[in-house]
């Protein structure tokens, strides 16, 4: 068993990144991103997000979810609760093996605090490792406090709770 989200992340990466999406509710879409749960075990899960180019989410939070976001590729940046984005323009380069310089780097550690996300012209993708402290895991797309991304996001939440 895992005591915290860091342990879960380390285990998943060492265990060969198992892809075992849950049968129920593994896919969620919004106006700016598509997500799928790659693996879920008890109160822990990892979701993969693919984000459209030139988009931004409003500041929001996922209460009672501890998370670690990990860069995969693309041009994306996270902001703190005040809307301050990190300038990552110096890291927008490929490595010798063709991957993004930021691949595997931790983008954000978050214990339910507010944050935001935006993408540049290539879009982007990241993994989010999650420890759900109270509710059963579903998706941070659904477990959202703050302004929604758009109409499709609202529809996705509505359909889930219907």
């Amino acid at each position, binding site marked *: 068993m895992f005591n915290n989200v860091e342990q879960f992340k380390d285990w998943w990466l060492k265990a060969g990144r198992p892809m075992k999406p849950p*049968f129920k509710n593994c896919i969620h879409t919004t106006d700016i991103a598509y997500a799928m749960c790659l693996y879920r075990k008890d109160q822990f899960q990892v979701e993969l997000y693919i984000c*459209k180019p030139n988009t931004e989410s409003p500041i929001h939070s996922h209460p009672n979810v501890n998370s670690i976001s990990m860069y995969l590729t693309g041009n994306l940046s996270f902001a703190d609760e005040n809307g301050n984005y990190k300038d990552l323009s110096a890291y927008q380069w490929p490595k010798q093996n063709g*991957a993004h310089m930021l691949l595997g780097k931790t983008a954000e550690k978050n214990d339910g605090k507010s944050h935001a996300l935006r993408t540049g012209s290539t879009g982007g993708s990241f993994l989010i490792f999650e420890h759900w402290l109270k509710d059963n895991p579903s998706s941070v797309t659904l477990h959202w406090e703050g302004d929604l991304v758009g109409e499709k996001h609202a529809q996705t939440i509505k359909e889930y709770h219907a």
Partner: protein
Amino acid sequence: MLRPLRNIMHKTVEQFRDWYFKNGSPLRPPFHNPVFYTDNAMSLCLFREGQYQVELYITEPHSTSPKHTHPGVDSCFVYLGGNIQFNLEGRDNPDVSQWQTEKEDGTHALLGKTVSSPDGIPHWLLIGKEGGAFLSFEHWKDKDPVSVTTNWEGEPVGEVHSKILEQNLNDNISERVS
């Protein structure tokens, strides 16, 4: 440790798929052209080396992809989740709704099942209310890999897809001219 793919001889895209899974499903999306989207799907290239790549597709609920081919590309699709009906022209296309069941470990009964789609065989997708997700393993035989979203012959998925295909065509023409 991941062995370099270029030193491994793959005769088929299925061999590449087997290599990928045996090596722990490496996540190494490329810096260039990793993400594409259409009216009903988004894709991320999870791994690319040489003429081979694997793309993850996540698709909208209640959507379809019309009949199409990906010229010069052998593909095989591996089910991950949701409700997707793959259809290949001239083949038996069993109704997968009979397998919309949960296994004991909480995953989909079709997880890991493969549909091979050789170059030139038209195929089309029907996606149910849960949406769908699958891996597209690809062997690009005569050009550098990009995405099968853009290497598309047939009716586009919708307006967004049409624009992407048009842009891609213009880019290809510009490259040839320069």
